[in-house]
């Protein structure tokens, strides 16, 4: 790098920006990849069942798999709309 480059240099090098962005996206993709393949399908089928009884969207159903020690915890979170709660 020349002295002129050094004096006019921006604060952060683009390579370090690249590295940070990659660290974030790779960590995110690893988290998704580690789960079993059936989670999205499970989510869709749950939607089919639940929507027989209440009006919910795919976004209202959250399926999460977490690790706690040796234990895998499958967490289901279904938010029901206000009106359906009265029906039930």
């Amino acid at each position, binding site marked *: *790098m*020349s*002295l*002129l*480059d050094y004096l006019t*240099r921006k604060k952060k*090098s*683009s*390579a*370090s920006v*690249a*590295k940070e*962005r*990659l*660290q974030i*996206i*790779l960590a995110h*993709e*690893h988290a998704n*990849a580690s789960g079993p393949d059936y989670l999205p399908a499970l989510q869709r089928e749950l939607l089919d069942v639940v929507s027989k009884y209440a009006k919910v969207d795919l976004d209202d159903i959250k399926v999460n798999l977490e690790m706690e020690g040796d234990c895998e915890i499958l967490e289901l979170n279904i938010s029901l709309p206000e009106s359906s709660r009265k029906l039930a």
Partner: protein
Amino acid sequence: MSKVIVVTSGKGGVGKTTTSASFATGLAMKGHKTVVIDFDVGLRNLDLIMGCERRVVYDFVNVINGEATLKQALIKDKTHDKLFILPASQTRDKDAFTKEGVEKVIDELRESFDYIVCDSPAGIEKGAIMALYFADEALVVTNPEVSSVRDSDRILGILAAKSKRAEEGAEPIKEHLIVTRYSPERVESGEMLSIEDINDLLGINLMGVIPESESVLQASNSGIPVIRDSQSSSGQAYDDVVMRFLGEEVPMRFLDAEKKGLFKRIFGA
């Protein structure tokens, strides 16, 4: 014991075919009987890089379909009698590959070759999966650039999950990183990911760094694998890769920028 090595990357244009050609040539130059297979059905190019494009008669798919024998399809290299090329088919039929068909060909090659180098197509479609499925070791070719690093990471995931070794629960594929088109000057000025950065991100054993060099294009222009250009930095770097692969301790080269004089330091190159 013969070994199957896949040269893969996910992303296109990073130097898989260049690496396959030089790596296979290097193994043969060291006296090992080697075959290099082009898995890029429909986009055959290894023949051009190896300089044998006018001698292709039968191809990989012909052998799988029983239209030709392996002996008829294998092209013997002009300069190295231990080196053979199995060209890809130019068919547009993407179903040309079956796992059984590819396995039969690889098993037959294992009987007479020390090393079977599989040049993978880009992407994660069938051709790429077939190229890595039977591998014992993998050379993951990566450019110091965001999309290439991400795609390499993806390919590492596939190597660990979709290969024969993974499916059978055998010892996992040995993964080696080859960084190509590396420019120490640009790394020094903070505009290119460094070897340490890529190592941190991908976390696999570094087998070689190939510096950006004009001689790679010159070599492909004339159909001579760049490893045969012993004057060029990339040729020397590939030679190091082959020696490391064969178990020799070779220190990494071409990692640092050339030292500049005072004039250049002040005014730039």
